[in-house]
């Protein structure tokens, strides 16, 4: 679990990221990487097939690979000297000019995934509006996105706040293209495959914690905040939205098979799911931004 719970740092120049390890039964194991230079503002943590730990930090604009023991193995991107004067949240505030994307650099990256060859795919992110591909050693390959890579777009291969990414066994990438309200599927060469749009109306009386305007793009029902894909021969895609606070189970072709959850702070309710893991079809872990918690969910499908 990669969190923003550390104390050091100013509130607008945070160095608050902490990384915790828990056992499968939920018991605390250890804190990893205390005061690591890249750990500023946690956005995502992913574990690769070799149990390496990948930290994606949108405060430092860095993606760092740690060994299972916590040693730094690979460093991608470079931390700015200060983020105090530059941080805004374009998903929620009026557009601000963003400099063109630069190869090998990231601008508020959000998530990481890998294809079977170990190539690295980074959703990038809040400021850049693109997906980057690097080889397994961190050598830059390419970026796909509109124009200079920092422009929001809604066409194929264009993004508006790519907020998460997950890979299937064939190496296709499922990008949570959040403010476009779709999961965009790319092949491992970053070529557009298809869009997946979830269109299930919210129930009457559905709420949104935080008091935001529900018509804002990140809060449209089905707008993907987090994605994961189950392992195994028959894979499923899970997608979480913030409003009305649901998790959707989909076939990889985009068919919505079912859904569950609602906005709220009680058990079985969700307050802005920001990260999701699905170790099996009927076991899902969700981390919520507004409740500072992780829920382990056991699904009981009737069919």
């Amino acid at each position, binding site marked *: 679990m990669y969190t923003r719970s550390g104390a050091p740092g100013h509130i607008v120049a945070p160095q608050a990221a902490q990384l915790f390890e828990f056992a499968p039964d*939920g018991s*605390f194991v250890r804190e990893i990487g205390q005061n690591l230079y890249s750990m500023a503002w946690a956005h995502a943590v992913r574990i690769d097939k070799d149990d390496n730990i990948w930290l994606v930090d949108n405060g430092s604009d860095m993606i760092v690979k740690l060994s299972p023991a916590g040693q730094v193995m690979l460093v991608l991107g470079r931390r700015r000297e200060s983020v105090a004067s530059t941080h805004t949240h374009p998903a929620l505030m009026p557009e601000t000019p963003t400099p063109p994307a630069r190869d090998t650099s990231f601008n508020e990256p959000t998530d990481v995934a890998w294809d079977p060859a170990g190539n690295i795919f980074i959703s990038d992110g809040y400021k850049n509006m693109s997906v980057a591909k690097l080889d397994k050693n961190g050598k830059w390959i390419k970026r796909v996105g509109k124009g200079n890579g920092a422009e929001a777009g809604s066409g194929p291969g264009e993004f508006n706040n790519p907020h998460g990414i997950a890979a299937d066994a064939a190496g296709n990438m499922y990008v949570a293209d959040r403010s476009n309200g779709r999961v965009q599927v790319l092949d491992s060469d970053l070529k557009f495959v298809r869009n997946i749009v979830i269109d299930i109306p919210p129930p009457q009386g559905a709420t949104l914690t935080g008091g935001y305007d529900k018509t804002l793009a990140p809060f449209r029902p089905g707008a993907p905040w987090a994605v994961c894909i189950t392992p195994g021969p028959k894979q499923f895609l899970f997608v979480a939205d913030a409003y009305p606070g649901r998790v959707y189970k989909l076939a990889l072709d985009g068919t919505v098979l079912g859904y569950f959850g609602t906005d709220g702070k009680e*058990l079985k309710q969700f307050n802005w799911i920001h990260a999701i893991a699905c170790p099996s079809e009927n076991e899902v872990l969700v981390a919520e931004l507004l409740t500072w918690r992780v829920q382990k*969910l*056991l699904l*009981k499908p009737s069919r």
Partner: protein
Amino acid sequence: MKSLSRVAALGLALLAYPLPALAQAPQEIPFDSVPNFLKMPPRPLPR
């Protein structure tokens, strides 16, 4: 008679053709949440 048999043949052909599965609207999936799943130690954390 000939046209009647054609109609019958068409009917049989339609019957023999496998019907596509009826599209089902996505349903709510029942689920449980494990209470108090993550067990953080009290702060400050052990180092």
